[in-house]
């Protein structure tokens, strides 16, 4: 087990390294940040001076080695645009994104699981089919368009909810969070819903498939034969077995929710790290892009690792190390 973990750690480091190389080359290929950042009034001398100030006049490999040296010491560089440590910039925004993602996930579970179970238990009923058709729409709507529609309906036409921004926040354990104030909560509903719709459809489908499979299992048949109430069968016996794959998949999806909050945050002007990322890409703010990706990849790797370990614990047939061909 230890050997396995050490090996995975090594691989994770390698992944991070390769990714940093790719981002360096990628951004280098896109353009020179100074072109975008500098005032159009600047003359050639000032352009050269600014390039030198940010160290962009040195060869790419040298810039990369400097970055690497600093990264090993935990310094991921300073933002070209904001003149702040890139990691601080991202961590400043992390709570906002995290909060939104958790809220969206909870929404997806609390909407998706009951609907999915209903559809699974009553596949032939109209309501069951309606849920499934609805989930197909949930899958099919382009995220940005759906967000805009939500704003149109709930903020502009009905005027029930604010159209964007984060609203009032309060300090909780040193982080600023919105969910404790009414104003903050009202700002969070639309973006969270937008982010949750796709995942809700996913949960509905997973739950329905699980329900249908579990319903055919022997132990459910036994329970029925024993005369256990169908309510108890559904809520205790089936739910337990359905939730395992749902939670596993959602665990994996959590990383992607955080990463894909990019579009939602742009549409709703939510000051999270996804929005920071888009802005940083537009401005070629390399340190922020690299730091962001490092962090995301780190989260992904961590989640994958946890899931893999959990999997091997659950299913001895999938051994972790030293598979023979």
């Amino acid at each position, binding site marked *: 087990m230890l050997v396995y973990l050490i090996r995975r750690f090594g691989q994770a480091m390698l*992944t991070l390294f390769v990714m940093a190389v790719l981002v360096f080359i*990628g951004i280098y290929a*896109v353009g020179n940040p100074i072109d975008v950042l500098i005032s159009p009034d600047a003359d050639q001398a000032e352009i050269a001076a600014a390039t030198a100030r940010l160290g962009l006049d040195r060869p790419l490999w040298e810039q990369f080695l400097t970055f690497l040296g600093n990264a090993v010491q935990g310094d991921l560089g300073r933002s070209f645009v904001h003149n702040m440590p890139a990691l601080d910039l991202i961590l400043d925004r992390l709570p906002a994104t995290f909060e939104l993602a958790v809220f969206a996930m909870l929404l997806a579970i609390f909407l998706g699981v009951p609907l999915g179970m209903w559809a699974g238990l009553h596949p032939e009923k109209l309501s069951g089919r309606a849920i499934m*058709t609805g989930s197909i729409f949930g899958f099919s709507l382009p995220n*940005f*368009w759906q967000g805009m529609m939500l704003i149109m309906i709930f903020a502009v036409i009905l005027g029930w909810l604010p159209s964007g921004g984060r609203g009032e926040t309060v300090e909780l354990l040193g982080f600023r969070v919105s969910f404790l104030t009414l104003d903050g909560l009202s700002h969070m509903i639309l973006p969270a819903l937008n982010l949750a719709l796709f995942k809700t459809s996913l949960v509905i489908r997973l739950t329905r*498939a699980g329900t249908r499979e579990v319903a055919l299992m022997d132990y459910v048949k036994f329970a029925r034969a024993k005369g256990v109430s169908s309510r108890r069968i559904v809520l205790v016996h089936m739910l337990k077995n359905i939730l395992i794959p749902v939670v596993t998949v959602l665990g994996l999806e959590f990383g992607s929710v955080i990463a894909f909050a990019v579009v939602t945050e742009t549409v709703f002007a939510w000051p999270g790290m996804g929005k920071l990322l888009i802005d940083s*890409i537009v401005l070629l703010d390399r340190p922020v892009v690299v730091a962001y*990706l490092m962090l995301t*990849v780190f989260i992904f790797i961590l989640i994958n690792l946890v899931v893999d370990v959990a999997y091997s614990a659950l299913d001895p047939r999938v051994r972790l190390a030293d598979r023979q061909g």
Partner: protein
Amino acid sequence: MSAASTPRRRADSPAARFAREFAESKLALVGLLGFVVIVLAAVFAPLITPQNPYDLGQLDIMDGRLPPGSAGGWGFTYWLGTDDQGRDMLSGIIYGLRTSLGVGAMSTVVALLVGSSVGLLAAYYGGRVESLVMRVVDLQLSFPAILVALILLAVLGRGVDKVVIALIIVQWAYYARTIRGSALVERQKEYIEAARCLALGDRRVLFRHLLPNCLPPLIVVATVQVAHAIALEATLSFLGVGVPVTEPSLGLLIAEGYGYLLSGDYWISVYPGVALLIAIVCINLVGDQLRDVMNPRLRR
């Protein structure tokens, strides 16, 4: 409980059975019909549209943003109105459908081929090959797809071919992982052991035994993934990279019309949006039924 060990029914031919089971859902049939219509429209676009919306010489900005049903300067009626460049929306939508479907189908097929070959080989050989491949897959999947496509297209520039390349790059790993997952399970089953004991060649075991058994989930994933690719292309266009502005896909039409949504010129983004939604829903309806039909565990 193990599906593969259940003997297959031999009552009728697999194709007939498949068709019968598929047709059990009326909704899926509607989806299939819609899908066929859409594909036909896309294929024969130049023959059925009044205008070639990709030819700037045939557009006139003086006809820009006309509401549906207006007559333009070219002698035909704009049934669905025009966009700000004077592009006939109906022609634009049909051509856009062509581009969107083309991009979606093309990228999915190539990604499927690349991804499943890699995944299959990895699962079959195991060991170092597998761990190397899966690290690459992990690396790939640890990048958010939108982000990879965004950076790729920023580097590559605009173009249908470039969008296809970007979509292949973000999708292949997904198939590799899917097929590797099911192959891993299949590999440990008796029939593969048996094939090996018979000393059949690697290639034969791989393609004649392993692949067919991993195929059903893959086909389902691919169907859904076409829809996903189309949506991803739309999002990329929304973010300002993707197909060229003079040859808009559905996604780009929506993105361009998105700005007019609040202003009352609803047709510019609503109609392409509806077209996109119909296309994706049809594909997903078909994919959904395929999933049910092909999942042996649900077979009664």
